[in-house]
């Protein structure tokens, strides 16, 4: 009964080929098949935003996509941003502004912010809050997160290209 398919895709620039069950969620594929456990799984029905990744450059809930749907896609996860020794500018801003506490929501929030910074360039804190509304954080509140995003945005603006 369990139907399998072979998929090919790129994750954080690296090519993968795997046989997966058709019903496997992209979130579980990233974590269990590829060992990329930076993508967190919270609610598994598209509410909490913890599993947010980029697929072909756009933020999506990886719990609301099947792995087989990512055939041929370019996926980016939090592991693609930076490493503990070399944080990305956005991650560095999160550290500097105390924008995380327990860290469970952080990978999803970072990937939402990557979409925001790359594709949307919000002008106001209100727009940042609007974009973050799809990611639940129950520790810090959002003030520090908004400050970090604002700082990363300002830094990106000051260094063109």
């Amino acid at each position, binding site marked *: 009964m369990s139907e399998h398919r072979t998929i090919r895709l790129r994750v954080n620039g690296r090519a993968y080929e795997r046989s997966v069950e058709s019903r496997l969620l992209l979130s579980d594929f990233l974590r269990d098949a590829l060992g990329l456990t930076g993508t967190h799984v919270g609610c598994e029905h598209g509410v909490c935003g913890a599993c947010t990744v980029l697929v072909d450059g756009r933020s999506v809930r990886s719990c*609301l*996509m*099947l792995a*087989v749907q990512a055939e041929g896609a370019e996926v980016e996860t939090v592991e693609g941003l930076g490493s503990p020794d070399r944080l990305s500018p956005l991650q560095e801003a999160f550290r500097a502004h105390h924008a995380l506490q327990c860290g469970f929501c952080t990978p999803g929030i970072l990937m939402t912010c990557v979409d925001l910074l790359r594709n949307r360039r919000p002008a106001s804190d209100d727009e940042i809050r609007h974009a973050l509304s799809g990611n639940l954080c129950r520790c810090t509140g959002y003030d520090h997160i908004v400050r970090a995003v604002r700082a990363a945005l300002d830094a990106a603006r000051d260094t063109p290209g």
Partner: protein
Amino acid sequence: MKPPPFRYIAARSVEEALGALHEAGGEAKLLAGGQSLMPMLNFRLLRPAVLVDINRIPGLSGATEDADCVRIGALTRHTDLQNAPAIRARFPIVADALSHVAHLAVRNRGTAGGSLSHADPAAELPMLACLLDARIRTQRAAAANTRDAAAFFLGPLATAMEPDEMLVGIDLPLLPERHGWGFAEHARRHGDFALAAVAVILSAENGSMRNVRVAAMGVGDTPLRLPSAERVLEGAPFAPESLAAAADAVRGALAPMSDLHASADYRRHLAGVLAVRALRAAWERAAA
């Protein structure tokens, strides 16, 4: 919280998708953006034998202006619809209302056709389809079909489509050059399903409201046009008494449900308040 097993078909054409639907004899579901279907699968509220993924079918995306309408492909993502030049120019109400749909990552995947097919009575696009007299284009076997939005929505999550019928596009007939629009929604948190929303289109002629259309959502089994409120407003001067009469007409036309989030009385009251807000916004734009 994992989907039950199913046979997965990535259709490459509308014909292939329709063939798979027909063959499955009512046991298949179409997968578009998946932002409503995937949660239902994860919760196992649905157990389709076959899942027909239509995301790889070419030619079903985009919004383009035609002679008398804007044509929207069923697979157009909410984000792309919001940003489409034809929508920005001709139907800014659609771009505005879509900003209330869930959150960024959901709008990046969710599709126009998916929202209409899902037919949630508290969803923005179905209400706009009713307000804008949309023509909903579908395909079933070799036959193409077009239905008016008014005849499309039958109940909560129920449409006039047959199980082996597929929505392929939405046509929005162009509005008169000079018109105003208003959209007012209230939700507990931005992006949540609305407790209620009201949308209005009208023209301003010598201080009076003309060609008035009023639609509401979240306050019935389907999105609703409110002809009784439209009649009260048609030709009426834009004045506090007219707005109060319209709010009464809106409230009188509705029989909303009570639930955890709001009582029926509150929803009915709210719809009147939102109608006045939407009317004021529409008048300002029409008279500008």
